[in-house]
């Protein structure tokens, strides 16, 4: 056997609110984020599980990295309980409000500073709150390393990484050399269960390394909302957006109204061409609003 140095893995994890219990203000449509209970983003957990399996079979040192408020420390402790070796929390109020371009920029800086000799970075394929699936691929661009998204299975042989994934109805096998980055889908690597006792131990033991913007050599102008190219104009709850049009009358009449108002939408999703109006219909009952 080759005497190769131990693999260095970095797993990016994010704390997200527990969606099933979202406390939001239905009037303003804003989320009371401070009231939401946090959990480790599901796809990040699969990514961590993939890293842990690599550690089991090859031996590896795993660093988990999260950017977020101080409360995100919880998921880092959980990652230690699952088997990670070191955890870094990037926390700084000036980093808040970053979009994916700036999040990936900030994470890249932290990685370059804290674990420059990484072999493989693992991200979740997407988060359940922002749902962008952008941070992983953008982090790879920032670090200028090869990357593959939506990975279901990963094997390592020497410096080579072989990955299986599904993409747009294709089953693909891909290869790259380390260092590289993968985003892990939730189709593989069901995360291990951590006992309460394990969690408790992690809370008592393992230290979380905290880093601010200054620690990783970034300036205010580079991070957070002000550096982000996108702006959120408005956020509202989709329930409040529901039009709730009520239609009464004969089923035939309702069906016709439905097609008149939503024909484009139906046709788009069905991917079929629909006639815009029914030729057997009288002209006089067409425009009745």
């Amino acid at each position, binding site marked *: 056997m080759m005497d190769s140095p131990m693999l260095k893995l970095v797993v990016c994890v994010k704390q997200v*609110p527990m969606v099933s219990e*979202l406390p*939001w203000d239905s009037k303003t449509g804003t*989320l009371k984020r401070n009231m939401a209970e946090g959990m480790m983003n599901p796809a990040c957990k699969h990514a961590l599980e993939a890293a842990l399996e690599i550690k089991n079979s090859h031996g590896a040192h795993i660093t988990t990295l999260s950017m977020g408020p101080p409360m995100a420390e919880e998921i880092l402790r959980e990652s230690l309980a699952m088997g990670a070796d070191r955890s870094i929390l990037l926390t700084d109020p000036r980093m808040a409000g970053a979009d*994916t*371009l700036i999040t990936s920029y900030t994470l890249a800086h932290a990685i370059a500073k804290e674990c420059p000799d990484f072999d493989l970075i693992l991200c979740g394929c997407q988060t359940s709150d*922002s*749902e*962008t*699936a*952008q941070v992983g*691929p*953008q982090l790879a661009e*920032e670090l200028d390393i090869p*990357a593959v*998204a*939506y990975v279901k299975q990963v094997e390592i042989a020497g410096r080579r990484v072989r990955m299986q994934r*599904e*993409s747009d*109805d*294709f*089953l*693909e*096998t*891909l290869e*790259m050399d380390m260092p*590289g980055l993968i985003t892990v889908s939730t189709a593989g690597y069901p995360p291990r269960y951590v006992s309460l006792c394990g969690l408790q131990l992690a809370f008592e033991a393992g230290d979380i390394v905290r880093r601010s913007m200054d620690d990783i050599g970034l300036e205010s102008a580079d991070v957070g909302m002000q550096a*982000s*190219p*996108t*702006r*959120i*104009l*408005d*956020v*509202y*709850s*989709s329930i409040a957006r*529901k*039009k*709730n*049009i*009520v*239609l009464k009358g004969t*089923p035939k009449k*309702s*069906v016709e109204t*439905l*097609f008149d108002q*939503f024909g484009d939408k*139906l*046709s*788009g*999703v*069905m991917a*079929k*061409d*629909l*006639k815009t109006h*029914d030729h057997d219909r009288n002209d006089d009952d067409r425009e009745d609003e």
Partner: protein
Amino acid sequence: MTEKMNKPGQRICVFGDYRNYFQNRVTLQLLARARELAPAIGAEVCAVVFGSQVSEYVCEYIAHGAQTVYVADDPVLKDYCVETYLFLAEHLIRQYRPDIFLIGATDFGREFAPRVAKRLKTGLTADCIGLEINADGLLVQTAPSFGGNLIATIITPEKRPQMATVRPGTFKELPHNDAAAGRIVSIPVPSDLPIPRVRLVHSERKPPREQRIEDAGIVICGGRGMGSRTKFKKLFEMARLMGAEVGATRPVVHSHWADHDCLVGQAGKNIHPRILFSLGVSGAIQHTAAIHDADLIIAINKNPNAAMMKMADVAIVADAGQFCSAMIRELKNRIRE
């Protein structure tokens, strides 16, 4: 040329994602929407096509509304390769400076677009379900988050291009027009194209399997209010016409009007349809908790006060069986084959 370089805002580019052309018409849908948005900013609508022997797609995009098609056609572009396509896209955008670049939210699109945005240091909104131009001529992008529970509107005020990936089925394609004329601009493929660092070892199309209710764009859910097994069966005919899948509530499954496979809810499956029809369903939480992300909910119930009717975009007060029959007739009338 210099004038064009100095004055961005003259092009909306749409990425030609043709790999699953017949299942996924998102490129055509984006071209149609781009044509609607273009007049507000005086833009030309362009498609961007990379591949090998792709002239049929070029013609198809012109027939569906592209005024110009930028095409790089070369045997080295045979496989969809993120890194190669990135290289070409970056150069194309730096040269032609489109104001807006739209990409279908396919798996490929969602892997490719963020990296294009990163290289150009611009913003990108993921998986949009709406695009508008506002009074300032900016692209207003509507995107869901938190499993569709929250909707955000997002702009990219300064950086260009403004980029969005858009969910398939959001817009309606234009009818095929053979007479449409378009300009074709050939993009040279440099001989020193960087060698991709990710190698495709093997790729095969997944065996065509039946659509699963979890992935269906349209789901038609029937509840106890369908009245009988025979009437419930009509939902399958409606679903066939729409390319939809049929779901059911627990009482329906317990009465053996439908298989357990169809059960939607806490004890069954989670669904994410774009459009949900819900017929004769009361809307109990154990059922509705499994419905995520539907852009359009159409409920049919005798009782206008049923919970399902309250959470619908369109609440139709009618007999569920009769509505289903009327729907089947109307669909047969309207679908152009």
